[in-house]
């Protein structure tokens, strides 16, 4: 009898462990997973301009909402998406916080070199994920940089060359020229992403030529790389 009891207990323990293992697998959230009918990033990347696209992605930041539209910087573990003036109610806009997963349907377009999804609609999905900025310093000036368009990236040890307000005074965008190893690069503080009241806007406004900074940006494109600065700090 004792043997039977011991066998039964052992079996219970084994099954319990197996059950636990199985549960763990079921609950593990894979941010790269796509539901049926949704493109992978590779498929999106390969899609022709002007074709309809359906993607699942995670909001990383938004520009200010206006007139039932919102522009979103979104990403998944494989690539990034710029959702230009996506249809969105004001109430839904408040829910598009960093990490929020959304399914987006729209058309792929390119404006001045910036690949984007236009005329998009979206629905909320379960799950969250936020990107860690990829260090793209080594890619500055290289053609390969375009492969990371729209991603959250960082550039380290950049020297400030010039700060220019679009309107000559605070209020609108700030054009920032940063250099690295003797080459100059254009950056932008986009007022609808980080407006005059934001820490980034204020910090950039106080920069002096020669300051050395680390920046985190969304790799926006306008006639070439024109990253939108999202975070800035003195270089470590």
């Amino acid at each position, binding site marked *: 009898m004792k043997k039977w009891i011991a066998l039964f207990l052992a079996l219970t323990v084994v099954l319990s462990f197996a059950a636990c293992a199985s549960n763990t697998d079921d609950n593990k959230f894979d941010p790269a997973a796509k539901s049926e009918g949704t493109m992978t990033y590779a498929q999106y990347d390969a899609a022709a*301009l002007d074709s309809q696209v359906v993607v699942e992605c995670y909001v990383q930041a938004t520009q200010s909402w206006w007139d039932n539209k919102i522009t979103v910087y979104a990403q998944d573990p494989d690539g990034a998406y710029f959702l230009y003036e996506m249809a969105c109610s004001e109430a839904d806009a408040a829910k598009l916080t960093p990490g929020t997963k959304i399914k987006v349907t729209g058309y792929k377009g390119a*404006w*001045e070199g910036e690949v984007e999804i236009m005329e998009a609609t979206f629905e909320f999905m379960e799950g969250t994920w936020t990107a860690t900025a990829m260090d793209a310093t080594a890619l500055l000036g290289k053609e390969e940089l375009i492969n990371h368009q729209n991603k959250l990236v960082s550039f380290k040890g950049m020297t400030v060359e010039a700060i220019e307000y679009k309107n000559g005074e605070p209020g*609108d965008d700030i054009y920032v020229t940063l250099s690295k190893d003797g080459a100059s690069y254009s950056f932008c503080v986009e007022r609808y992403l980080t407006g005059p009241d934001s820490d980034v806007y204020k910090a950039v406004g106080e920069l002096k030529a020669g300051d050395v900074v680390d920046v985190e940006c969304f790799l926006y494109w306008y*006639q070439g790389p024109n990253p939108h600065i999202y975070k800035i700090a003195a270089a470590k």
Partner: protein
Amino acid sequence: MKRCVSAVLLISMLCLLFTGCHGAAVQESFTVPENFDTSRNYEITFWAKNDTNMNQVAVYKQAIADFEALYPNITVKLSLYTDYGKIYNDVITNISTNTTPNVCITYPDHIATYLSGRNTVVPLDDLFADTRYGLGGSELRFDGPNREEMVPQFLSECVIDGSHYAIPFMRSTEACYVNKTYVEALGYELPETLTWDFIWEVSDAAAAKDADGNFKINGQKVMLPFIYKSTDNMMITSLAQQGAGYSNDQGQIQIFNETTKMLLHTVADHVKTGAFSTFKISGYPANFLNAGQCIFAIDSTAGATWMGPEAPLLDISEDKLVDFEIEVMTVPQYPGQQTKMISQGPSICVFNKADSQEVLASWLFAQYMLTNPVQLGYAKTEGYVPVTQKAQQSPEYQDYLSRCGEDNDEHYRVKLEASQLLLDNIDNTFVTPVFNGSASLRDAAGQLIENVTKSVRRNQTVDDAYMEELFDQVTSLYRLDQPTVAAGKQELGPLPQTAILLLSALGISWALILGYAAVTGIKKKKR
């Protein structure tokens, strides 16, 4: 007897109290004060638009400094915009909170919407005519233009419902900036006047590719032969040139007609060949033109400083610039029809305030923007034309025009030719009727072209059925089936007769109740 009078007074007061509750608080209409009170200080706000051109910002700042020196009791606070649409949106938002600016750069179409709030914008006719503070008035501390020195056509563009609600500030039109080198390389010669057919034919030819997929004309992977910046203007101008319907002065929408359909089918045909695109879909015409990726770039004359390989303002890197000969031409026309091009450019309106002295201070500043130093300073920043004959005929301006092409900065050839194009064609310019909703109709006009262009690029069928559906969609989207497209808070208008009777009856009832109570009280006291 006394009681009777008191009762009547009470009833009247109650009626007034009730009627006063109806509708939003309305601004009193503006009356020109007899004198400008210089013992007081005024701070006025000025919302101004520039074309992302720092020279224009400098002109605004200089104008403010010079004006403040003349009127030390007036301080002008400048807010800068680079987009008319953003100013429009901000004004609409601020109308409802009574926080409009004092003076604002705007379009008459936008003013028509602002006027849906009662007494929001000051009608300027009385101010124009005021002998002391009006145009050329005796009490002005500056040498402004008198009424006869304003270009009449430009001034008339600021009339809405029979009153002037703005003064013109600058005028421009559209020009076609042409890569003449490529036109000739394709075997064509530029005609004296561009026609739509010519542009379509050359653009189709320029869309030819070689076996490697490069465009034959430029050897590049990108070529958008014909790009129109403002598709609103494209539609409006084409309809005006053909004498087709757009809208009338009564605000009747006439755009959904056969001529519009024909134009849209033509656009569709040439999107299919790869000949045509728009700013909204592809980007700035100037950038493509300067990179040798566009042959016909239609944009405002106020964008001339960005056009051409030697342009003083450039948005593309040096390595992308392509050398070519640039020609500034009128927008395409239809043969046998009168030349027509749109008149556009910033106007200035003055917003009404409770303090008429503050409004007068605002008007003085608005009027100062018409003086020669401001007019000439601003006109030289782009392909603009001053709005006063006083400035246009001044020796300084004549000297400026005569030095066309002397340098690639102030006398940049393309910019001066763009200004000259408008000066030569003032009689060929037109504007569209202004009414509450005309701003939406303008957006709708452009949307038709944008939608057709996108649909063709997306391989959708563009046929007559598509056109009918498109017309329905755009009508609904821009609410063109409604009498007016009102923005902000609607005024409720005067009380209906029945409501007045009801409220009067209520007032009388209350008066009788109070009267009865009073009489009862007096009787009790007497006891």
